[in-house]
């Protein structure tokens, strides 16, 4: 499934921050993890992740360092900073709020379409 551009831009930051909260990682592994988490449903254009990573680095949410991969080639690793942790918590709160509101309205819609309204569920 391709997300629309705005949603993708909005969700990329919390996704990347959350994945890095699981542990340090690098570009390709982050993209793999996104696919894994969404059961292959979320498909980013691979190249688009990197400008996002650079922006987060500039905003001091993540830190980059060059290391060596198992293959012996150099690889850029990213790590969450304290700032990033705080940012992640904030994102989480906002998304939960949005998520809650959406769930509520989705469920009303579904109920409205199929069965009579049962008041007092929420």
């Amino acid at each position, binding site marked *: 499934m391709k997300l629309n551009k705005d949603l993708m831009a909005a969700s990329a930051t919390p996704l990347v921050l959350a994945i890095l909260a699981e542990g340090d990682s*690098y570009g*390709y592994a982050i993209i793999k993890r996104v696919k894994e988490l969404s059961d292959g449903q979320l498909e980013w*254009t*691979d190249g*688009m992740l*990197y*400008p996002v990573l650079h922006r987060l680095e500039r905003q001091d949410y993540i830190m980059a360092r060059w290391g060596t991969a198992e293959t012996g*080639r150099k690889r*850029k690793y990213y790590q969450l900073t304290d700032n990033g942790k705080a940012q992640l918590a904030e994102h989480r709160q906002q998304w939960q709020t949005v998520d809650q509101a959406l769930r509520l309205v989705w469920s009303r819609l579904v109920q409205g379409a199929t069965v009579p309204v049962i008041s007092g569920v929420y």
Partner: protein
Amino acid sequence: MHETLFDAEAMIADWRRYLEQRRALAGEDIDELEDHLRGQSVELQGTGLSEEEALFVAIRRLGKLDAISHEYALEHTERLWKQLVMGSGSATRGTTDRELLVVLLLAAAAAFSFKIWDLSGLFALHPDQDLPLFYLVHAPYFVVPWLCGYFFWKRSLQRADRVKIVPPLVAGLVVMNVYPFIPLGDTHLLGILHLPIALWLVVGFAHAGDRWQGDSGRMDFVRFTGELMIYYSLIALGGGVFMALTVMLFSSIGLNPAQLVFTWILPCGATGAVLVAAWLVESKQGVIENIAPVLTRVFTPLFTLLLAGFLVTKLFAGQDMAMERDVLIIYDIVLAMVLGLLLYALSARDLMAPPGWFDRLQLTLVVCALLADLIALAAIAGRITEFGFTPNRLAVLGENLILLVNLGWSAVLYRRFIQGQQPFAALVHWQMVYLPVYAVWAAAVVILFPPLFGFV
């Protein structure tokens, strides 16, 4: 079925080169993307794809390059302004640091070669007196040897070739100091004006190194000259502001810094800045677009209009030109400008590109300049038949003839190129072959004119 040999490394190298053309992507970004590409490719091979197929799919999945580099550009806007960063960049740091040191030493040496005549009291500088004539006469010598030294240091040139610059330098020195000139007489003044032109060819020889015999080496020197003038002008503007502020700051506490400004900052800055400007031009190659061709594009239409307008006006409303000396000089300056516009348009042109509107405009400009040159020549000839030869008239006549030959043949070559009969390179070749002619004529004015006209 036969196996075709597939070279994954070569393909990745090609892909890298393609990315490197994007300004928004820095070397390390490409390293990062390459790591991604390799990771993706290895995983795809695990699912049964061949190495070649895996790489293709991996590149495809990275996404459209335009879109990606657009995102990079949004994140790194500073990269779109090509930066001339001195002494950064990991690999070349050592050499640029050393080069900077050499340049600063040479600039100091150049400044010292000027100052020593003041310090020794032989030709003392005074803030409220004119510059001693000595400095005007020897102006090229405070700069040219050090510039040549810089290029010798920078490029490999045989010792036998290096010493070739000595005879012309010595010859100029001897002529200017041994000939019994009347100070600031006609031939003396002509010598002072023409010596720098002749010696600039020596700089060109040192600049081109062993490429002086080829068109490309000479064309690089033309580019270098144009950029040097622009950089020097910019430094001079900054220097002017610096000196003005020096004067104002010290005046505010009741001191007069004229001595400091006019006997130290101005002479040392003016000589040393040539070396620094040369170094800037050398180190910015390939980092920043050349500015001379850009100015050429801006001013070619304007000069074409100017000359065409002038010719039309002269045709319909013209009276006989007052052929005073300064009028002729204006003609020469205009023609030299046209030649400069032509040279710098050539220097930036893709030799393979087909003729376009700008080429037609250039041809128009050259033809207009030719007509103006003919008018000037007719006037000079009239004056010479009426009043006889003087050093100035002969010098102007020679310069106009040289320009006439150059512009005339250029017009022919340009026309052939536009009609598709000849490659553009023929025009470039003609200009490059002609380059030494200016210096040879200038040398002739310096060396032959004084005895010819009795050192007046």
